């Protein structure tokens, strides 16, 4: 799927043009459905995500910054919608009974590639952090140390550790959400 980057379409959307809305729907509806399906395993719920995401895009159309990556923008909305649905599902275990695992037509190889993508993306993002922050983040997340332990080892205050982790998370979240990743061009 091509990277959606037509400033004209996004300007149109901001103005409330339905043609622009249609173009975006055509570009993203199927992808959005398949993405939701991968996580939710339910056709109804995946359809609901498609609806929710496009309703949000329309409602927030004036806030869209056409200069930034629209792919990142729609991804962020989709991710949040799926997460909300997942939180709800956790509280309603009955809804799992009828999961259909084979609805998304992806084969094993692709999914292995996907796993490598994820690890690569994570590493690439973490490497973009300043050295000290990177170290603290890795100690916390990859070595499972508590903030207090990190503070003691590095001889800094717990406040500093908390601050560094918070900034790291902020950066990483933005980096991963927004950045158009290179793998997009290699889509299978």
């Amino acid at each position, binding site marked *: 799927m091509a990277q959606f980057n037509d400033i004209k379409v996004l300007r149109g959307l901001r103005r409330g043009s339905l043609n622009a809305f249609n173009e975006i*729907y055509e570009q993203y509806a199927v992808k959005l459905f398949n993405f939701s399906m991968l996580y939710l395993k339910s056709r109804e719920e995946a359809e609901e995500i498609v609806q929710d995401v496009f309703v949000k895009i329309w409602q927030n159309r004036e806030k869209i910054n056409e200069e*930034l990556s629209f792919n990142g923008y729609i*991804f962020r909305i989709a991710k949040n919608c799926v997460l909300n649905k997942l939180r709800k599902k956790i509280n309603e275990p009955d809804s799992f009974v009828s999961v259909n695992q084979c*609805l998304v037509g992806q084969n094993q190889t692709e999914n292995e590639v996907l796993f490598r993508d994820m690890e690569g*993306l994570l590493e690439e993002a973490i490497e973009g952090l300043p050295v000290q922050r990177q170290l603290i983040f890795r100690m916390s997340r990859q070595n499972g140390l508590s903030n207090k332990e990190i503070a003691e080892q590095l001889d800094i205050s717990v406040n500093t550790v908390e601050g560094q982790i918070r900034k790291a998370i902020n950066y990483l*979240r933005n980096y*991963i959400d927004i950045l158009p990743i290179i793998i997009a061009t290699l889509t*299978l």
Partner: protein
Amino acid sequence: MNRALINKFLKQQCSPEELVEIYQWLCDSKNEIEATALFKSSWERVSGVIPKSNVNFDTLKRSILDQLEEEEPSKNLTNDKSPFREEQHNVASPEKINVEADNEDLSSTAHRSHYVLSWTRTAAIIVMAIGLTFIIFNYFNNTEEEPVKYIVKSNPRGQKATIFLKDGSKVILNSESTLRYAQDFGEYNRELILDGEAFFEVAKDSIKPFRVTTQNITTTALGTSFNIRAFPGEKTFNVSLATGKVVIDQYQGSDSMATGKSFTLDVGEELIYDNTLDQFDRVNFDPKEALSWKDGIIYFNDSRFEEVIEKLERWYDVEFELVNQDKMDDTYNHIDGEFKDESLTNVLRIMSFSKDFKYTINGKNVTIEL
């Protein structure tokens, strides 16, 4: 991170119990970054190929449009020229997105989706409210310790607010802007998060710096007054310094790995950051232009028509519609004016003396005819 489980999940081989485990992992704020990476990689990998399930993307689109129409009755939808209606007539033509024929009756499908939607919306609002609280509470606190409670002050369009902080600092928050800070603000530190525009008068405290974060930029002050303008959707971010000294740090560029350009501003200086170009510009600012909003004055100085409209929309909580936009040219730019406590009618009337346009105000909708 449980690699084996994630792998199994991606191969679609999870049992329902394992699925619950994956869902819990994805939702746990401790794993936010890893989960985001997984989501993002699958988002990029997932194909745009129509799935072999019974999904009719046209019907789905129609029910979305129905819902939008329901929510925006003001959007001249009774009018035959309504884009929504026009669209519904066009929709029959087979498009790229057309899927294997759905055997169900179209109208009944549309109806059902619609019902599902209103039900989902209620649920979504509840889940979102819970989710939001959850996110805000966890946003700064991905640690095992007590969650920090945050105070959120938010202004809709057309409203401003003055906030007095515990440390003696004062914030004037512009419309359509949000300020967040910890409940124990001032005790250990003075950190705030701003979306939109605010003017800060900072009380002196040489130990705890006063820090305002907007997206990826942090402005630090000791005892000063300054203005920050960072509306989402606008491509620039501005900090204007009225008194004292501030330091501005960039934490990352959205598409470069640059971490931490740093600037110190002097009185009367403004730092403009262009999001798109990832470029900083230091200029002397016109105090009237940057700061008059906090005294209730709308001030234009050689402003572009588009800018004027954006400002008025925010100020008066209205929506502008431009008729005959093709007549728009540079003669409509370069707008000057200063209005204190004026009604929108007066502002538009005065503007229309120098620029050639007609206007009609109908509730919250303003039509400008060039």
